């Protein structure tokens, strides 16, 4: 049997200009142009779409789900969180 499985391209879809491109899936294609056409047929069949990106899957470098320490923070970083500050939103100018 001939192997017709070309490499995979990850597909990113943008609803309107200015929005973020969001990952929606994956297509097999022999080259990037073909990937773009297949991605359009598969993922822009109905939803509004202003742009599509295709990226060869092999070009992606991803963090490892198993390696939870990758995202753990060495020290307490709560001072970066606006909710951890106690100052009131409004001050009463007459209070002394």
């Amino acid at each position, binding site marked *: *049997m*001939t*192997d*017709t*499985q*070309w490499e995979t391209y990850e597909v990113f879809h943008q609803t309107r200009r200015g929005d973020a491109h969001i990952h*929606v*899936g*994956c*297509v*097999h294609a*022999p*080259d990037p142009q*073909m990937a773009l056409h297949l991605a359009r*047929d*598969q993922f822009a*069949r*109905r939803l509004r779409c202003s742009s599509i990106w295709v990226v060869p899957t092999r070009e992606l470098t991803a963090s*490892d*789900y*198993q390696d939870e320490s990758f995202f753990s923070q060495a020290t307490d970083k709560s001072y970066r969180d606006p909710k951890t500050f106690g100052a009131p939103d409004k001050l009463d100018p007459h209070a002394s």
Partner: protein
Amino acid sequence: MSVEATIEEKLAVFEARVSRGEKVEPGDWMPEDYRKNLIRMISQHAHSEIVGQLPEGKWIPYAPGFRRKLTLVAKVQDEAGHGQLLYRAAETLGKSREEMMDELLNGKAKYANVFNYPTPTWADVGVIGWLVDTAAVVNQTMLSQSSYGPYARAMKRICYEEAFHIKQGYDLVVSLTKGTPEQRTMAQESINRWWYPTLMMSGPPDTLSVHTNLALRWKIKTKSNEQVRQEFVDLIVPQIRALGLEVPDQECRFDEKTGHHHYTQPDWNELKRVVNGDGPCNAERLEVRRRAHEEGRWVREAMEVKGSTARVS
């Protein structure tokens, strides 16, 4: 982890993750049976989408009017797209598309029973969209909660598109019920034909299902076949009756005590026969698929040449 974990330890971590509601992704460790069950389910699901184009596709040239024709073409195109999404999800588990295609074409693979029944009238297009796709959406909404990430994500997209399939089918049946007595009869006869095959779609009763326990334990599925079927019956029976049509089951009634509709069980031997290749249209469906695969050979070859040139340059 400095020391390699044992299978038991890995399984414990896996089950804890799944029971917390975490999604499993392709690169993660998973029990072999989890992988096997998913490959079986997703590839059968993909085959069902692909074969599912045929019963309705036959009506494209005869659709009454351009709007109905365009709608039907779009629906059948969606089914092809759903098949592609699902084959892709199954591939992430290590099975090649060639293998899956081969199993479908040589009759080894199973697919949904319901697509092996004939579609003798135009009303069948409406009833498939309305009844069969409602049953499919109940099942697929459940599957969009599946523990396997790629499957759950494909389901979300598919359910979104199926909403259109149901609506166009319902609209078609409504137009028949508002038409001549002959059209009304055509709608009723179609419901009579599809009722039991549609009930069978959710699978055998839980007592007869060999895969259910494992699938529930690992949240591949989140509801049993019986739960899914009951949900479908409770949803569709009031809709059928609201159109002045009949549910072809004298025993079908709402039970105040349980809050659900009681219904007659379909013939489970028939389901077994049809799924195992001996339904009214199994041979015809596979013949059409084989011919389509053969006729598409030049496209695959042309793309293969294009692919190898692209790789060289």
